[in-house]
């Protein structure tokens, strides 16, 4: 309702061709966004220093400034990226992804599946219909698993939060290693003769191309879709993000340096596997975990350990395993769990060793 009205107000008064109607207003909004974004630091310093009269070098001052700077920054980044990915997603539906992956060979298929997992819209409650739909259409099992692992783990929200809070290097590291885990785990699963461990009733389902959902979208629909995905995601995660940033701000100002080094430092060999195992039963989305991760790192936790912890929290969830049990025999779920856990642990060691 309101989304529609806003959309009409902004986009539909600019004549009829693609450029004046859609591209120009988007560029205009982007310039406004950039102007605001590049002055956030000035704004937060001004607020703390001149309006609230708190000393910026004090504990309270640095905590408040951190909060006032990070909150709008994270939300602005999220808004921009979720909108952009929303537009992209209106082109890449699960149906298209399936058509693209059907009959692809292993390896190449695994790579493409993991990449498509980043942008194809997916929520873990769709894991079963998606699994059946992919497998019945001839997507190899290993390739399907690459997709199922990458889709929840490597997503635009995780990447934006990592970029905003911890910098582009860690975001890139997460993206690349996350994709590697998904690709390699998919390949390993594909080699372990997984067909035997899929429930029998699933194998009897034949894909009927006539049943395929085909959606036609106009630019108007796509913009509406992108806008509503921003509203939808903000509504779901704003509280997690705020709590996370508040926690981060508190730790930033008050917790002594090096506090986390004891628990999650890189000295002890067992810290990575322990962090990963702790992360399996914990279930949170990227929005909830990344501000906490930032706080852990700023107080001396080792990057690799934290990265592994985060991947295991986001990628492996108990509810998803329960749902997948409907189509997979326990043994295949076990293989799935073990390969992903091993992959994530290796990522942890790799980063602790490199940095």
């Amino acid at each position, binding site marked *: 309702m309101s989304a529609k009205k806003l959309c009409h107000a902004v986009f539909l008064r600019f004549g009829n061709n693609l450029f004046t109607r859609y591209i120009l207003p988007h560029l205009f909004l982007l310039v406004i966004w950039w102007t605001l974004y590049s002055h956030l630091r000035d704004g937060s310093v001004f607020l703390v220093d001149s309006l609230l009269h708190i000393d910026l070098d004090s504990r309270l001052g640095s905590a408040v400034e951190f909060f006032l700077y990070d909150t709008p920054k994270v939300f602005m980044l999220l808004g921009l990226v979720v909108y952009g990915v929303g537009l992209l997603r209106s082109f890449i539906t*699960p149906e298209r992804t399936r058509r693209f992956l059907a009959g692809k060979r292993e390896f190449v298929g695994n790579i493409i599946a993991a990449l498509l997992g980043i942008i194809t819209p997916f*929520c*873990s409650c769709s894991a079963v219909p*998606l699994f059946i739909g992919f497998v019945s259409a001839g997507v190899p099992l290993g390739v399907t698993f690459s997709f199922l692992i990458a889709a929840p783990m490597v997503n635009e929200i995780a990447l934006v939060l990592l970029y905003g809070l911890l910098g582009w290097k860690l975001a890139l590291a997460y993206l690349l290693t996350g994709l590697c885990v998904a690709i390699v785990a998919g390949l390993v699963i594909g080699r372990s003769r997984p067909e035997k461990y899929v429930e029998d009733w699933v194998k009897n389902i034949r894909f009927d191309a006539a049943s395929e959902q085909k959606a036609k979208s106009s630019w108007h629909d796509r913009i509406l879709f992108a806008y509503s995905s921003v509203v939808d995601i903000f509504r779901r995660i704003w509280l997690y993000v705020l709590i996370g940033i508040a926690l981060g701000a508190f730790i930033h100002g008050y917790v002594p340096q090096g506090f986390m080094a004891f628990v999650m430092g890189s000295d002890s060999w067992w810290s990575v596997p322990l962090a990963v195992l702790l992360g399996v039963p914990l279930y949170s989305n990227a929005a909830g975990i990344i501000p906490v991760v930032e706080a852990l790192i700023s107080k001396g936790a080792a990057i690799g350990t934290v990265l592994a912890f985060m991947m295991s929290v986001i990628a492996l969830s108990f509810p998803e395993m329960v749902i997948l049990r*409907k189509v997979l025999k326990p043994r295949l779920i076990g293989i799935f769990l073990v390969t992903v856990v091993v992959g994530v642990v290796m990522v942890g060691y790799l980063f602790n060793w490199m940095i």
Partner: protein
Amino acid sequence: MKEVIVYGSGCPACHKLKALVDDVVKQNKIAANIEYSSDFVEMAKLGILSVPAIVVDGKVKSSGAFPGRDVILKLLE
């Protein structure tokens, strides 16, 4: 009488959508029979890849989305 089935895999969002469809039907006094189903075989036959999905008289009207009231009303017409 329309036959409406909301497909889901038991996640909170899917149940919420079923309740919303119930509410829209009641408020607009539409003659419809609404059910909730987690039948994955049926979903596969209908070509549903993502849930929650709304099926009206055997036709998939929406899948993998959480439409608002006005959109649901349109789907039911």
